[in-house]
């Protein structure tokens, strides 16, 4: 009997010991989306494992939360349910909604500790444009950041070389402006009877509001002004852009209508299209699976080159213990370090947010082999912050719904822009 007691007490003590060490570890819940095609969940898990190895007192629980929309929904629900994650990556246009919900903390104090502006100077300025709130404080930190770029199938261009030459075009380079885009797309489209064997270009659906913002910028306009309040969706420049799209899809039929976002890279890899507009974040998949020569280029210009940046930023949440916030910052800093940002870029195709990543030997060797990877980074010179406004999910829905209707020929471009414009203004006012 006595021995039993002793045994029981020893057991309890062992439990207590483990319980106490377990509670000394800080637990960080990390929600993240994957916004492009490709097996990026594995990459994130690998990075988390590395962080835990270097920081044995912190346990990070990565939660793959779906695409960008789904991740934001999960975050919003968690915050309102009083159980926020410690860190989340959400799409950059969502910042004002997060602030409206009073969900996240400013990072200025942490950045001050790291050396303030000197620390921030390590990162591409173009990617910090979406990180600031209206109060001038910094609320987000860049992570999976991109711009849309033009991918082109060099072999298909070569195969059509004589036709391109007859039209005065060069088969060794992609189109440089909108007029050329139409000409190239027309020549590169191959039809057999009532079937299209090969499309000239794909401008995918799903995130066509993002690509549309790029076309708007190229034509010297924008969708919503920087204040997040003034809607300019219905501008004549935007109408010109939408008319170009409708022409490509409905009149010339050189671009399929509303090709799903996640399937478009497969179409490019499968030789269904000669060109596509897509995020640079999808490049790793193409690099690994495309069996032909392909190039990446700036999106063709109209009045100028132009594009919004895209992707997701880290945010650290309110309503969690201070030690969790500190640990969360440690994780953010780790993920933005030259080594990790570089690794992420190589594995995904996103631009490394840390400039120093590009000084690393492994990165240099990699870029030498795949110079396509530098295009998005260089396009940053012509990049603008992405539109931001409160109620962004509602706004985005208004934009995509109406763009879709115009591209399917169910609304005139004028009406689509006007309808979206009205809905966007209502959403910003919360009516």
């Amino acid at each position, binding site marked *: 009997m006595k021995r039993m007691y002793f045994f029981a007490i020893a057991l309890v003590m062992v439990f207590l010991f483990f319980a106490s060490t377990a509670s000394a570890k800080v637990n960080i819940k990390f929600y993240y989306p994957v916004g492009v095609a490709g097996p990026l969940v594995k990459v994130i898990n690998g990075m988390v494992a590395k962080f835990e190895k270097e920081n044995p007192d912190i346990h990070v629980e990565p939660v793959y939360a779906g695409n960008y929309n789904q991740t934001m929904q999960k975050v*919003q629900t968690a915050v309102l349910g009083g159980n926020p994650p410690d860190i989340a990556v959400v799409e950059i246009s969502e910042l004002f909604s997060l602030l409206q*919900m009073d969900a996240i903390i400013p990072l200025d104090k942490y950045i001050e500790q790291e050396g303030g502006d000197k620390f921030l100077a390590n990162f591409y300025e173009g990617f910090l444009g979406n990180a600031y709130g209206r109060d001038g404080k910094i609320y987000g930190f860049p992570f999976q950041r991109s711009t849309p770029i033009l991918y082109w199938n060099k072999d298909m261009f070569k195969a059509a070389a004589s036709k391109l030459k007859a039209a005065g075009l060069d088969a060794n380079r992609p189109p440089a402006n909108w007029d050329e885009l139409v000409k190239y797309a027309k020549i590169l489209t191959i039809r057999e009877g009532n*079937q299209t064997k090969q499309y000239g270009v794909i401008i995918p659906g799903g995130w066509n509001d993002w690509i549309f913002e790029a076309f708007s910028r190229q034509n010297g306009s924008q969708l919503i002004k920087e204040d997040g309040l003034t809607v300019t969706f219905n501008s004549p420049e935007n109408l010109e852009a939408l008319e170009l799209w409708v022409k490509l899809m409905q009149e010339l039929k050189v671009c399929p209508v509303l*090709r799903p976002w996640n399937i478009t890279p497969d179409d490019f890899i499968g030789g269904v299209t000669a060109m596509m507009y897509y995020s640079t974040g999808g490049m790793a998949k193409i690099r690994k699976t495309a069996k032909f020569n392909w190039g990446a280029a700036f999106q063709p210009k109209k009045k100028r080159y132009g594009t919004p940046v895209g992707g997701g930023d880290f945010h650290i949440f309110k309503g969690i213990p201070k030690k969790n916030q500190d640990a969360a910052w440690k994780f953010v800093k780790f993920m933005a370090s030259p080594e990790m940002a570089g690794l992420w870029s190589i594995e995904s195709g996103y631009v490394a947010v840390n400039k120093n990543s590009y000084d690393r030997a492994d990165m240099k060797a990699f870029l030498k082999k795949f110079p396509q990877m530098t295009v998005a980074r260089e396009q940053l010179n012509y990049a603008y912050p992405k539109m931001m406004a409160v109620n962004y999910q509602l706004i985005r829905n208004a934009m995509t719904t109406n763009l879709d209707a115009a591209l399917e020929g169910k609304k005139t471009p004028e009406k689509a822009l006007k309808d979206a414009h009205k809905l966007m203004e209502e959403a910003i006012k919360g009516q």
Partner: protein
Amino acid sequence: MREKVEQYRAYFFLIPGLFFLFLFTYLPIMWAAWLSFNRWNLLCFKPKFAGMANYVKLLHDDVFWLVMKNTLVFVTVSIFPTMFLALIFAILIDERMKGRVYYIYSLFYPTLIPMAAAAMLWVYIYSPNLGILNVFLAKLGLPKLGWLGSSSTSLWALIIITFWKNLGFFMLIYLSGLQNVSRELYEAAYIDGAGWWRRHVSITFPLVAPTSLFVLVTAIILTFRVFDQIHLMTEGGPGNSSNVIVYYIFENGFKFFDWGKASCLTTVLVLILLTLTLIIFGIFGKRITYSSD
């Protein structure tokens, strides 16, 4: 006296069940009904009484009417063909004794796959250029369809997968219903010279009516609350062409964070379902009194 005690006892045993039913079903319904008269969204963070404003707005919301139309199409088109074919398959399997187990398995199999996995599978089947469906269409010389990516086909693509998923389930229910139909009736009809089709129209269809009622109610519940496949495959798009009421409620509540509008939609849905249930049980419920015993 004794009977009274029995009665009280019955009520007593009902209490735990009723408590949770009240807490998780009736209370939220009443709460949603109350919220539907309030303005409550991201920009108005506390519920504020707004009278009928949400309902008036709903009447002027084009998307709402589109969603109602889609729901109607989705429910009717996916219920009746599924029920009819499920019954036919059940009859065929019931008559064909040899190897019937394999037919049951292969028809029932889709029901066992989780909808999320099935949806991802079908996304590839529907893929516009590389998907097997369009490859077949092209082989037959037919034009390729946009399926999920086109507003004229997206709802139908979802109906097809729902049909595929539910068919086996309903077939199995019908198969068990058929076991209650007396064989003698068929033999008598056979001797009288009734053909296959006549036998089933006159004997099977009326006698499995109770099963049909059960299947109908189940099917209405299953199709009205359709969500997974829409969320995973189209998110209601393109242009809300595949958006139905439950998904629209979800979108307003958890995507656009307009709880006033979401509650308003919920109340409308509750009223519709209540009316439907009353109609079905009020009219059809009374008529089905046959029994083969």
